[in-house]
């Protein structure tokens, strides 16, 4: 049974990836419970499709692609449900301090949930989890340049939201959105990681 050895190493890879999957999921969903549900769904899907994984290719990218696609489809579903309730998204209210660990991060978590999902995922994958632009583009199914511009918009918006003087225009047009080519904010801060 040669195939089992290959599956076994993928299996070990999946287990090893759980902490990182959870960390990304928390920042994406803004809720510890939803994050763990997302990771569980990702694992079930990975296991069910384990034979589709090409040995030797990037396992992390494969797993995070599953996680990301799952997040997006849940997000769409959830958005519909929530909008049915009060016509506005209440994502940011789902995080409770006890569940989420350190209180100091609450403001950041809440701000993250205010970012559009495509900006959020670019920021979390590159800025927090240390994926390269290329890997993030691969995971999100878009061009590298798209990841860079989403990242810049995410950073600009986040610093607006978290600025000590308070958000300038919470839902209005972003001052730095006029350039979509990644020049507005110098890159290199958020992604510096070992």
């Amino acid at each position, binding site marked *: 049974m040669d195939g089992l050895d290959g599956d076994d190493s993928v299996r070990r890879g999946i*287990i090893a990836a759980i902490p990182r999957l959870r960390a990304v999921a*928390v920042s994406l969903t803004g809720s510890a419970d939803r994050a763990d549900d997302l990771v569980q769904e990702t694992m079930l899907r990975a296991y069910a499709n384990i034979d589709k994984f090409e040995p030797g290719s990037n396992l992390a990218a494969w797993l995070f692609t599953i996680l990301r696609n799952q997040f997006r489809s849940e997000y769409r579903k959830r958005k519909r449900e929530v909008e049915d309730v009060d016509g506005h998204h209440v994502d940011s209210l789902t995080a409770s301090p006890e569940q989420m660990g350190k209180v100091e991060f609450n403001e950041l978590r809440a701000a993250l949930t205010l970012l559009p999902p495509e900006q959020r995922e670019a920021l979390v994958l590159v*800025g*927090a989890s240390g994926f390269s632009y290329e890997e993030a583009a691969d995971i999100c199914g878009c061009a590298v340049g798209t990841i860079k511009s989403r990242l810049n918009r995410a950073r600009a918006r986040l610093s607006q939201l978290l600025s000590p003087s308070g958000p300038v225009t919470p839902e209005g047009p972003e001052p730095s959105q006029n350039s979509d080519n990644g020049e507005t904010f*110098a890159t290199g801060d958020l992604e510096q990681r070992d």
Partner: protein
Amino acid sequence: MTKKAQTQTERAGAGRRRGSLAGVDRELQVRIGAQLRAMHDDIIHEGVPERFQELLAQLDRTKAKD
């Protein structure tokens, strides 16, 4: 942040005449970046919760039956 990078950012900001304080912006960006990673690492340090270990064991049992 290096002094050179800061100067470049300030120059870039001034060049765009947005009237924003590029240095302050930059500082905030660095702080947000550090906080994002700290939050991320906090969760990574929780390891693999029991819920997932049980799930894995269950998946392995199912797989063994195949």
